[in-house]
């Protein structure tokens, strides 16, 4: 029984920003157990590609399919299987790290506080669980955002520059998390300049 094609297929995406032709016919296929790294100089539409891939931005031409079906039709399923970490960590400054996680992860799946604390532990920010996020440093906020992605347990990760504001230990942490995710049949689309030391299953997409 040929199971439906798993994973994400993006075909010939064209996006204009006003007069600028930002994405010119970009295509990619992401299968379970693979990491796709998107690189390229600034302004070549890396973030735009990520926003198109996760369905946040509708391209003028081209299509995005999840498990063989266009995402417009399967939006709830697609978004349930997706964890997106944007360039800016999407956290509320007035809420504590734990509250931030509880509300955003809680929308996706019923989650207990213990799991959230474990995720924060795993990304090394357990002590700041009860602190309002506005007092945390940029690196700590990046780690809280990573904890959110971890706690969502989504098969498809989309990370926009996950290495920014992170020290060497932080970068190593991100690489480990990606390796664990990919080896557990997860998928990841990562925009990053930092070369990800990942042995197998790493493919690159260079945008001009």
């Amino acid at each position: 029984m040929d199971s439906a094609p798993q994973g994400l297929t993006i075909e010939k995406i064209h996006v204009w920003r006003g007069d600028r032709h930002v994405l010119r016919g970009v295509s990619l296929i992401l299968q379970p157990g693979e990491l796709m790294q998107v690189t390229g100089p600034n302004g070549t539409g890396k973030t735009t590609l990520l926003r198109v891939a996760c369905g946040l931005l509708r391209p003028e031409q081209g299509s995005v399919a999840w498990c063989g079906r266009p995402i417009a039709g399967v939006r709830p399923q697609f978004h349930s299987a997706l964890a997106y970490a944007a360039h800016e960590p999407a956290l509320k400054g007035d809420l504590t790290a734990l509250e931030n996680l509880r509300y955003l992860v809680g929308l996706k799946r019923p989650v207990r506080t213990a799991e959230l604390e474990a995720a924060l532990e795993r990304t090394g920010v357990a002590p700041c669980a009860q602190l309002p996020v506005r007092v945390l440093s940029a690196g700590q906020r990046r780690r809280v955002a990573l904890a959110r992605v971890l706690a969502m347990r989504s098969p498809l990760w989309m990370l926009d520059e996950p290495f920014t504001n992170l020290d060497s230990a932080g970068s190593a942490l991100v690489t480990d998390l990606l390796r664990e995710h990919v080896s557990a049949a997860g998928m990841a689309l990562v925009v990053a300049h930092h070369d990800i030391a990942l042995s197998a299953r790493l493919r690159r997409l260079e945008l001009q």
Partner: protein
Amino acid sequence: MWTWFYKLASPPSVYRTATALTPWFMTVALIAIACGLIGGLGFAPPDYQQGDAFRIIYVHVPSAYMSLFCYSAMAVAGAIGLIWRIKMSYALAAATAPIGASFTALALVTGSLWGKPMWGTYWAWDPRLTSELILLFLYAGVMSLRPAFEDPARGDRAAALLSIVGFVNVPIIHFSVQWWNSLHQGSTIAKIGKPSMPGSMLWPLLTMLLGFTCFYAAVVCMRLRGEVLNRERQSAWVREAVKS
């Protein structure tokens, strides 16, 4: 069945059709308006109540009619654009907005000029004129929302949605203003009702209505060419369209 519709709505064919239709609509419009004026000013007998002041109806009623007609056209074009993702219907909506707003302003001014001889003041919060004023505000809302977005496609969609919401509210506004007016002033004031019109008064009015509608069609075609060019600057067919 849909292919001809998409071909028709393709930018180059919209551009060509608009260019071709403009002179036809304009001539019909000018002829109709000329006949309407001659009939309205020359042949129609003066009204037994308002005397010759009633002749303002030949300008006020058509412009009031066009103000609502254009808003509805804008809302329908916006809805078509949102539902079927047809870029050209956004262009039509964008082209219609200023025309409708100008007719609304004309209807307001002619209405208050007409009100002076009847009520002694230029503005007596007559329910129809008040609804017309709020319609002008609705136009202002749509026309200031569209250019506020850097991305023109997003501006089109936002303006389309607002014009639909506004369109749903037009009857509500009209009813609530009528209710509010009857609350305070009662209906003693002689409204700008269409006095029961004998034929010689009526045909000029119908001709003027036809003239104004064709005039709208002509001007919207003219503006549409500009809107299409603005939206299709990158495509190849624009090259020889603007070469001459």
